């Protein structure tokens, strides 16, 4: 079993059962998982900011408007079917509740990702977003389980996962 770390501004996809995609300690960032649960293909993006303003250099995935279409492409390239894709969102917290300067990056990240998913006609089937706690997301490729963990807490399933319906 290989754990792939998806760090700030990175994304990863896999169709290998047993692979685990992980983003540790998401604060205002969003961990966006895309799943084709029938085929066991999954991807994870670690989105940092809502919008590139259209001038992000090629190959940067920290902005929602770059990361969402790229993640869709990556999972589709691995065999996922676009109409079957479902999304899970984790993160988007306001870590420093008192701070007015933060402009609620977390909330803006979530809104941006949701808008983009709507454009791609992808449903959000589970989420653990907002609030003021940091979170870790784990995506178990093949079993389609998605879990979330908060500081000091234990790993809890967001998407229970199951054996593949049609292998």
């Amino acid at each position, binding site marked *: 079993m290989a754990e792939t770390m998806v760090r700030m501004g990175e994304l990863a996809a896999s169709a290998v059962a047993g692979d685990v995609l992980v983003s540790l*300690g998401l*604060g*205002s960032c969003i961990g966006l998982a895309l799943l084709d649960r029938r085929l066991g293909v999954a991807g994870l993006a670690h989105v*940092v900011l809502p919008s590139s303003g259209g001038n992000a250099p090629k190959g940067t995935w920290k902005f929602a408007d770059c990361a969402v279409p790229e993640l869709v492409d990556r999972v589709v390239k691995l065999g996922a079917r676009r109409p079957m894709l479902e999304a899970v969102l984790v993160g988007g917290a306001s*870590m*420093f509740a008192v701070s007015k300067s933060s402009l609620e990056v977390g909330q803006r990240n979530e809104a941006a990702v949701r808008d983009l998913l709507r454009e791609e006609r992808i449903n959000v089937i589970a989420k653990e977003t907002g609030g003021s*706690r940091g979170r*870790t997301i784990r995506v178990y490729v093949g079993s389609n389980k998605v879990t979330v963990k908060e500081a000091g807490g234990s790993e809890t399933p967001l998407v229970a996962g199951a054996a593949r319906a049609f292998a």
Partner: protein
Amino acid sequence: MTRYTDTQLDALRELANIGSGTASTALSGMLGKSVDISVPNAFVLPMAEAVGSIGDAESEATGVVLGIVGEMPGSVLLLFTPKDAELMCGLLGVEAGSEYGISALMEIGNIVGASYINALGQMIGLELEPTPPAAATDMLGAIVQTVLAERAGAGDVALLLDSDLVVEGEDCSVSFLLVPDQGGVEQMLERLGV
């Protein structure tokens, strides 16, 4: 990707050194103990690698953040491990984890961070003002990523100026990070003439 020369990094490190020297005097005055400073590190890292360079993303930490407003926006982040938070609160006679504990750490952050920011402003001749502190106790990764997203988010790399303040005889330290906005680094270097 933005690159800095060794001379430039030395200059930034020196800046951090003087800033944290002033901050250590402020902390020492608060605690009534001598405070030493470590040699500062200057990291210039792709954002993805920045969190890992600071520590285990899932470990617990208390972060106190102060914004810098004025001619060079940025953030100063003080990080306490649970052990350091407890020792620090003990020195101030309050219970760690309690409401008083958190406000004591915020006050440390306020005084230490503000003196760091003022020293920095004087050295580079820019008007810098600290904003009131905010605190969070959570996963280290979540705290650091949130500050990075706000400050360095739009750029390719994050510059971290990292120094430790060590309370003498107490085995207790605070780690100190300066995260300038993108463009802030260039401004500092220009002011320093390197």
